[in-house]
């Protein structure tokens, strides 16, 4: 028995997904999205679970998962801050936004704060260049940023998820 399993709701969703594609393999990406919703981060255990569920080798799941940048991998903080760094955002100051967050959290891109709350990344164009500079925090876009707004956001996130507190 695997150590982890989908909830009943996710399993139902998975069964439904199987009816939407002519091949079982095609369910892999949707199943990984489900796994991310259910388990938050995807590590070896989660990949193995999805592989067993679909009936494909874990190496296939790993190969696919690592092709894509979206999935929250093992070790990712609760709040994943992704600062868009592509041209339109860069032209309007994304570098300063990144620097400010980096200073305030004391981490660089690719790192997680020791408290495990925040992970910072630089990402490529998020399709919101008219509201540059912008960032994505978990599912949400924060657009039209300036340094003041960035400070407010960080305060807000810290208040929502106090250090040492459980969420």
């Amino acid at each position, binding site marked *: 028995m695997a150590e982890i399993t989908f909830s009943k709701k996710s399993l139902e969703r998975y069964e439904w997904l199987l009816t*939407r*594609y*002519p*091949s079982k*393999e*095609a*369910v*892999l*990406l*949707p199943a*990984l*999205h489900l796994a991310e919703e259910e388990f938050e981060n995807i590590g070896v255990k989660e990949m193995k679970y999805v592989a067993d569920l679909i009936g494909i080798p874990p190496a296939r799941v790993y*190969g*696919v998962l690592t*092709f*894509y*940048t*979206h*999935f929250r991998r093992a070790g990712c903080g609760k709040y994943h801050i992704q600062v868009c*760094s*592509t*041209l*339109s955002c*860069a*032209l*309007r*100051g994304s*570098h*300063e936004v990144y620097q400010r967050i980096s200073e305030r959290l004391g981490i660089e891109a690719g790192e997680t704060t020791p408290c495990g709350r925040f992970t910072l990344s630089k*990402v*490529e*164009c*998020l*399709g*919101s*260049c*008219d*509201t*540059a500079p912008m960032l*994505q925090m978990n*599912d*949400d*876009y924060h657009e039209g940023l300036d340094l003041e707004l960035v400070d407010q956001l960080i305060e807000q996130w810290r208040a929502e998820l106090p250090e040492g507190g459980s969420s």
Partner: protein
Amino acid sequence: MAFKKVLTRHVGKKDCHTLKFYKKQGGYAQAEDAVKNQDPDALIDLVKASNLRGRGGAGFPTGVKWAFVPKHTDKAKYLVVNADESEPGTFKDRVLMEKNPHLLLDGIIICSKAVGIHHAYIYIRGEFVFAYRRLLEAVEEAYSDGLLGKGIFGSNFDLDVTLHRGAGAYICGEETGMLTSLEGKRGEPKLKPPFPAVEGVFGCPTVVNNVETLANLPYILEIGADAYKKIGPEKCPGPKLFCVSGHVENPGTFELPMGVNLLELINKHAGGVWKGRSLKAVIPGGSSAHVLHADECDVAMDIESLDEAGSMLGSAGIIVMDDSTCMVDALLNIMRFYHHESCGQCTPCREGTGWLEKLVHRIASGGGRHEDLQLIQDVCDRMVGKTICALADAAAFPAESIVKKFPEDFLHAIEQGGSPASRNRSRAAVGGGTDV
């Protein structure tokens, strides 16, 4: 005749994303008529006659593409909607999906009827969570209302629509990469032929169309091909969403007739170059397009005119750069993007994008040599047209054009020990004067 917005007419009005609102405006009337009364071949002929060209970037005639799909086949046929919207500078499909999702479904039904498709997938980029939720609601509404599912509009035509989320990979916007991704694999593009219309997803004939392309269909059915062709240039007509970003006062998505003048778009609609500065350069069609020098921007925004100007309409993602921009830094940013996004299958692309980034980085950070400019051109020559998909070209076009049109910025960086941003502090900033 004055131009009337079609795709974004109701954007901003309360509940404009709901089925109730959409139907009140006469929505789904064309889809219903198509499903119940129209002959598939006649629909394809109508779309051919309208001269609708794909809005995803390549500008292929939509009706012609549909006609490539075999009429009689034992296999299923699929529609895969390209909602990956990942070309830097492009954010138009997002507006449609968030604010007018039923217009897309309306178009999907029309295309499906014309080609004989019973299952459509919408491949939406993973980061667009809000748009995904909006589309999900719209699809559910449409199923409950009998607009999707078995026997739609009370006819005997069945149509399913499934939303499929991508997971962060630019290359999945390329149609064959998208189809391999949809099959549950790494999103690696495939050689064409076979073209998707003959052998696409799951080995079956597949139409791939962009969101905005499909969103044009109800209007074409409503007003007919002749009237549609009168909107903008006849060879490339229709209402068009233009995305303007970068150094303008009022960035945004603007719906205007195809062929609008680029300077008018920038100065009138996007509020002009910001901070009272002057124009230096414009990328007119997403970061894959050849850059235009400020002197070249008096040009009509349509496929033919931009081809003639040595660039392309692409995704109509217009990125504006003011006179404070260092083009070495701008190019470095673009090259980092393509190097990061190359899927790595083809040597010229995998190595070429890496070399381009390295070369431009060296120039920006003060280690550049005069020969590097020729070297950049040589690397580009070894990339264009030599790979499985067009990502290699997409990286080479901005590289060769930016170096060619702004040699002074490169020479300055080579001779003065780097780009202004890298001399001031760290690199990575674009536009010495803008990075306050």
